[in-house]
Each structure stands twice: as C-alpha cells, then as structure tokens.
C-alpha cells in the first residue's frame, strides 16, 4: 500500500496522457449527493487536469483519489476504501492520492459537519462499480462471452466457466473506449470485503516519521514570512504605527497595515514581513502601534452572562412545540427549573493557523491546510476580481481543524499582504494569536423548566437556548442558523414540550466548533433530563428508555451502553455512573461515564460509548473518532474555557488554556452497533454527551449538580 499525499502531484496524469493509454473515471457533480459518472480517459490534453477518482494504468497500477481534505477524521482512507470495494481491487495494492481542489470535478470539498462519508457513500460506490463494469465489458468482449459470465476480483476479470483471467491493466485500453453507466449494479452489502474492515490508515506511516506535510511545512522560492500584530480588543482599529525599530531587525523587509474579514467585519492589524519566521516575530515585538480600542475595551464575559440571564426572561422564538406547556406547567405540582452555562471555547488545533498566498497580476496561488479549499478559491476570486480558473489551491494535511479551518479570515489577511509585497507570503499565527483572536465556539445559557406527573413520568419540558447565532453575526433579520437547537432530543415523548431560543448579538466572533451547538445544548438538555429522572425517582437510563420506546435507534444504543457499562450492577460506594445521549450528524450515541473517588478526589475513570452510525466504513476510525471526542469533550468540561476580561481574551497559550493530558485520560471503550442503515457522521457524535454524562455521574456519586462549565474537578 503506498501513498503520496502531501501536495497533489499535478504532472502525473499530464505525462501519462501523452505517454500511453489509461482508464480514468470521474464525475460531474449534480448537487450535494448526486453526480454523473464520466469517462475522462480521452479528455487529457496538456495543461488540462483530468482530476479523476479512479485511474488505472496499462501496468495495472490503480490510483484512487480522496477529494476530502484530511484533518485526522480518516476520510483520506475511507473514500478510496468505498471505491475499492466496488472496483474489486486489493486495498493493499492501490495508491491513494489527495485530489486537487476542483469543484467542477469533485463537487463539494468542504469538510465540516461530519459529511464526507454520508454525502459521498453512494457516489463513491457508483464510481467504483461503473469503472468495474467498463472493465468487465472489455473483458467479456475478449472472452467472446456475456458480461454475466464474468467476475471481477482483486484486479482481474475471470471468465467463470473457463477460468480464464485478464488483469485490469491489460483491459485498460479497451475499457477506456467505453461509456460508464450511471446506474451500475452495486454489491449487496453482505458481500462487502473492504467496507466494515479496520484497514490500517495509509496516512499513518507518514505521520510517524515526519514525512507528512502540513500547511505550515510548505515553502516556496522567494517567499517572506509574516507575523501579524492584531488588535487584542475586538474591533480595535490602528490609529498609527511606527515600524522603524522593527525594520532594524535583521531579515525584516516590510511593515504593512493590513486587515482581515471576520464574518463581514474588518479586523485591523499591522504585519511584519521578513525572510525568516523568527525575524518576523522579533520585528513584530519591536513594533509600536497605537490602537483605538472601540467601545469594547472594558468588556467582560460577566456582562454577557448578565445580558443572557436578562434575555432568558424574553419569550424568544419558538422552534418546536407540542401540547400545552404554559398551562399544564402552571398547574403542575412537581416542577423543577435550572439554568446551565457553557462558555466560549477556542478550537486550538495543534497546528497553528497558517497560510501562504502568492498574488500576481494574472494568477493567485494558495498553499496550506484548509477545511474549505474551494471556498478559498471563491473568496480570492471575489477579493481580487480574478477568474476562478486563475486561482490555484494547493491544500495539505491539516494539523486539526475542528471547524476553525473552514473560515477565510487567515487567507484573506495573508492574500492582502502578498498583494502589497508582490511576493509569496506565508503567515504563521502564534498560539497566542490563535487563542486570543478566535473566532470561538459560542457561549450559551440554557434555561430549562420541567414537571413530573403523579405517575412519575415527564409531563412538561421547556428548553430555552440563549446564545449568539453564528450565521447572523453581521446583520439582523436573517433566519437563525440551522442546527442552533442541535443536541435537544425532540423525540423524547413528553406530552407538553417547547423548544425556543433568544438569539443575542455580541462583538465576540464565533464560529463552528466540533459538533457546534450540540456541544452546548446537549450538556443542558441531558443534565436536565437527569434532574427530572431523579425528581421522578427513576433510574436515569430507564427514564430515557421509556420516553424513547418508539425510537428504535436511540433505544438500541441506550440498551447497548447499559449492557457494556454494567449499568444495572450497583457500583461500589466510591463509584458513580451517569448517562447521556445525542443524535449528531445522523449518528446516535449513548454514553456512560464512570467516576471514582480515589483518595478523596473525583477521577473520571471510564467512558463507555455506544454508537449507531449506520454502515461502518472503517470501524477503527469510528473508535478513534469517538475516543477523540471524549477527550475533547472532557477538556471543554473541566479543563479550559475562553473568558473576556477588560475587553480582551484572558487566556493566551496552553499555560492558561489547558488541554487534557495523557496522565488524566480515562479509559474509553467504544461499541459500534451493526447496522445496514446509510452511513452517518462520526467525527463529532460522541462529543456532546461526554460532559453531561460526566456531570451526571458526579451527581450520582456526590449529590452535587454541576450546571456551569468548565468546573474545577478538584473542587467537586
């Protein structure tokens, strides 16, 4: 199994086009999940990129392309696995290449919302199957037989009755003359031999010896490095700056005023350009800048909370309603009410934000790690009034993204610097830049009220979300972001239910963060369901099961997690368990946290995850993603948060924005439901229930209810 990843190798196919025949199959995207399969074998002309998904040379060498940027979520391997399954080639014999950014040939390439597999599963299967059928037709002709008498396996077509075999390589010339079918016969899932297997990821060996290239690693001839001093205050403006001292630092070449667009707002900055990163950083330290700090210089997070508590009294927008909450709740004898607070969070991917752009008269080129390569192309096309075809996007592996790398702000700023300097410019954000500037996950207040009837069942529930809306940061009047109520389980059978929100506007920039609103809403929702269960005197897992008895998939993961976590075995007096569930990106997760009191301290000890994500492509990736979600969920629960003091972010680097470490990592056991449902997203699903399962477990052990994140574990 081989990989060439790093940057897409653009010349490979051009050369092959000239030197010999090959079979190249790709598609023309027709909307989010649809496409038309096309034979690209004859479209190669010098300078024209084929950009296929399947490439087979006359030597039988098979190259499969992954068109989804890789940030650790595993699609680099999973997309080709799906093609290989239907193409009938040995996954160990193929080469995987990262495709270029080309929306005409690859459709949507933005990796957000755990969509890569669920939106591409059918397309990729059809792609592999169509190519296989072309090869089978070519073989049948040679065998003077019907296609139905042939079988494809491991890169060969066999004539079943005679046992004669021809390799794919030999068939390439003939197959490349044929038209692909757009409704090829797909395998029965029970026949899958690659899908569902934990195939070792091909990108991993590159990541254990330093070979994998990330955005930050890329260099080009004549480039300059930029380090940029941005206003520490939100919406600060540059009044004046003095760069004389900075220019004396050896290696420093230019000082420019610049800006970047963050959700339609211009954020001003002063940049130092130098011939090395270190010189740029030193120059930046020597800059003198006078800032106008706007009206926000005394702002604190506390003021936001005051505003949110006030807003919680407003009626807000009703998103969903059944029964008659207001009346029944009023009359109810057994009511409870609670507020939950979840803070701003930084994404803090380990690879700091960075990008390199070269802007010239007739061409723009980008190099870097991005979740949204085609978005960069459109952004730069618009910014510079250039035709999109003149903009080349080279994207690399990402050192984590979590939503942060889907934004254009980093590119916007460095493109401006390249245009000013007239050379390729690479910006590398410091960790302090990353943590201090955001955009962040939104903080939110959730107000919940509920009641229990005489039989001990949930009677009323009102869930109100008070937060900022990502999409509406720069203007009023648009509809709220879809997903703003994510993590609220509307399927619970509660006769009187209301789900509403009060959307507030603040100057703190926010954006998508792994699992987005699910991460904040689910904490409140699943904590409160726990409170209701205790109020009703019911087992919290059974309480949920009763309300979801008609929902097969929720019930199934709940039962599985109960079994695997020994839920019904009474724990010893120093152990507590808590449960929480969620539906995120189509996947259903039930999670049980087990905490222990060890030498008087509360220790998150074991997390049991049951996940139903439909058909599984690579089970080991599902496990890995779930483990990662638990760790990131715990970090957000009790390690760190972003707060604002005196108008600026109080945290600067990993000394104040703490991440979970190895020594404090609990056991994570992941159990996957066998399913024939369509495949769903796994990169975020186990994150939302992690915090509420943990705090529910702490409640069951200590009787202390935690309603504000992050909490201090050693103060519980």
């Amino acid at each position, binding site marked *: 199994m081989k990989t060439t990843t790093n940057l897409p190798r653009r010349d490979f196919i051009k050369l092959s086009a000239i030197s010999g025949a090959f079979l190249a199959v790709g598609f023309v995207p027709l909307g989010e999940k649809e496409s038309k399969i096309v034979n690209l074998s004859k479209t190669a002309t010098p300078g024209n990129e084929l950009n296929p998904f399947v490439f087979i040379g006359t030597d039988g060498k098979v190259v499969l392309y992954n068109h989804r940027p890789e940030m650790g979520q595993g699609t680099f391997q999973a997309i080709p696995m799906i093609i290989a399954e239907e193409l009938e080639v040995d996954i160990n014999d193929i080469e995987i290449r990262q495709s270029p950014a080309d929306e005409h040939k690859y459709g949507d390439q933005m990796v957000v919302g755990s969509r890569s597999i669920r939106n591409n599963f059918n397309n990729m299967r059809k792609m592999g199957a169509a190519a296989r059928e072309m090869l089978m037709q070519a073989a049948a002709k040679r065998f003077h037989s019907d296609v139905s008498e042939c079988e494809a396996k491991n890169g060969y077509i066999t004539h079943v009755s005679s046992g004669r075999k021809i390799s794919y390589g030999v068939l390439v010339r003939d197959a490349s003359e044929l038209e692909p079918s757009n409704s090829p016969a797909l395998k029965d899932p029970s026949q899958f031999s690659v899908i569902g297997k934990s195939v070792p990821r091909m990108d991993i060996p590159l990541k254990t*010896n330093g070979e994998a290239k990330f955005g930050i690693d890329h260099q080009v001839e004549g480039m300059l490095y930029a380090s940029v001093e941005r206003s520490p205050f939100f919406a600060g403006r540059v009044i004046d700056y003095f760069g004389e001292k900075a220019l004396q630092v050896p290696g420093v070449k230019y000082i420019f005023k610049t800006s970047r667009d963050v959700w339609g707002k211009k954020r001003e900055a002063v940049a130092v350009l130098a011939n090395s990163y270190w010189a740029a950083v030193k120059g930046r330290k020597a800059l003198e800048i006078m800032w106008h700090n706007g009206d926000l210089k005394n702002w604190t997070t506390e003021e936001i909370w005051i505003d949110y508590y006030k807003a919680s009294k407003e009626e807000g927008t009703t998103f969903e309603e059944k029964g008659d909450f207001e009346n029944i709740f009023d009359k109810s004898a057994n009511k409870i009410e609670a507020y939950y607070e979840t803070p701003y969070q930084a994404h803090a991917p380990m*690879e*700091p934000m960075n990008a390199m752009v070269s802007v010239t008269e007739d061409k723009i080129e980008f190099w870097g790690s991005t979740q949204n390569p085609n978005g960069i192309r459109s952004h730069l096309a618009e910014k510079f009034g250039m035709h999109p075809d003149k903009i080349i996007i080279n994207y690399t592996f990402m050192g984590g993204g979590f939503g942060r790398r889907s934004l254009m702000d980093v590119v916007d700023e460095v493109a401006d610097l390249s245009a000013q300097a007239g050379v390729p410019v690479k910006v590398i954000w410091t960790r302090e830049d990353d943590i201090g500037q955001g955009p962040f996950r939104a903080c939110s207040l959730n107000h919940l009220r509920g009641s229990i009837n005489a039989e001990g069942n949930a009677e009323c529930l009102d869930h109100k979300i008070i937060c900022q809306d990502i999409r509406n940061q720069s203007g009023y009047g648009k509809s709220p972001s879809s997903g703003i109520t994510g993590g609220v389980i509307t399927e619970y059978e509660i006769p009187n239910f209301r789900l509403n929100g009060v959307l507030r506007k603040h100057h703190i920039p926010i954006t998508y963060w792994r699992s987005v609103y699910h991460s904040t809403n689910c904490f409140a929702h699943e904590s409160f369901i726990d409170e209701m269960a205790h109020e009703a005197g019911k087992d919290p897992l059974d309480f949920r099961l009763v309300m979801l008895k008609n929902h097969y998939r929720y019930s199934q993961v709940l039962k599985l997690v109960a079994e695997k976590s020994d839920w019904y075995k009474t724990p010893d007096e120093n152990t507590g368990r808590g449960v929480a569930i969620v539906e995120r990106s189509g996947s259903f997760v039930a999670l049980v946290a087990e905490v222990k009191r060890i030498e008087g301290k509360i220790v998150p000890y074991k997390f049991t995850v049951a996940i139903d994500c439909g058909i599984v492509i690579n089970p080991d990736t599902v496990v890995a993603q779930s483990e990662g979600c638990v760790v990131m969920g715990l970090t957000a629960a009790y390690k760190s948060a972003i707060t604002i003091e005196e108008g600026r972010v109080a945290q600067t680097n990993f000394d104040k924005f703490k991440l979970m470490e*190895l020594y404090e990592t609990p056991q994570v056991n992941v159990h996957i439901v066998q399913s024939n449902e369509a495949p769903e997203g796994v990169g975020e699903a186990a994150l939302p229930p992690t915090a509420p399962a943990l705090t529910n477990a702490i409640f069951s052990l200590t009787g202390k209810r935690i309603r504000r994140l992050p909490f201090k574990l050693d103060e519980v």
Partner: protein
Amino acid sequence: MLKFYLNAEFCKLNGFVNYNTMGFYKLTVNGQLHSVEADPDTPLLWVLRDNLGLTGTKFSCGIAQCGACTVQINGDPVRSCVMPVSSAINSKIVTIEGLSIANSHPVQKAWIEEQVPQCGYCHSGQIMAAAALLEKNANPSDEEIHNGMRGVLCRCGTYPRVMKAIRKASAKISKS
C-alpha cells in the same frame, strides 16, 4: 552566553555586516554536521525547520507547553521551541527524521500497529518523547509513562492509543 560572544567575534573578524546579531553555528543533527547562519536567540526549532528543512519537528505553542517540538539532545527530550540555537552546539541532536530508517524504531512500529495518529501533527513530538522515555527506562510503570509524557499535548485526543502504543513499544524493546 559565552558561545554567543565567540560567534559574534568570529563574524566580526570575518567582516560580516550583522556581526552583532547573526552568527554561524555548527550543529550535529541526525548524525550530520551542519553549519547554519542564524540569530543566536533563534530557537533550535526554527533552525531545524527553516534552515535545515527538517519540517517533521512541529511548532505549536512556542513556550514549552505542548511538546510538539520535542527533539532529543544527547538522548534527552528537549522542547526545541525554547532552546536557542546558540545553546545547541556541541551536542547530538536527533529529530523525528533521524529516529530510524523507514519507521523501524520500536516506538514508530507500535504507533503504526496501534494506529495512533489522527491529524498526526503532535506525533513527531509524542514519538520523540516516548522514545526518549523508553531509552532510559525500557519497562516503565503507568505512572512513569504518565510523568514522562507530561506536557505533550494532543488536541485530537489520541491519548488512549498513545498509552497502548508505549506499552507495546516497551514490550518490543524488553523482548529484543
């Protein structure tokens, strides 16, 4: 500091313009001797990455808080983001690129077998720290592993596998 003055002196004598800041440093990296020109306070990290093109060593925090930049100096794990190049002369520096040929170090093998990396960005540092730990203590207890890996962060949350892989590598080393 002494080394710094010596180098500044050397530059001055040889007529270099920026004699008061830039210096030439001889570094032994992965068994090869290199001569680099840099500011004496330039962190070794950036000399490795920008001057020598060894981009396997990563930048993430710049203040010795995350371990992404870990290299081995004379066998010890060192955060190269806070080590001035001027202090790195006369020592044996090993980066991820020089840890082994073709991923053959027991730690790398265990990392691949356990499928540890996700995004992979932190793992040059994780592997260099783990290899240094096992070099000194081939059979560490869980607590010794925890201590040895303190301050080596992974935002993707690969810790459960890091733990398994270190145990596996330890078993491999103990066996051989």
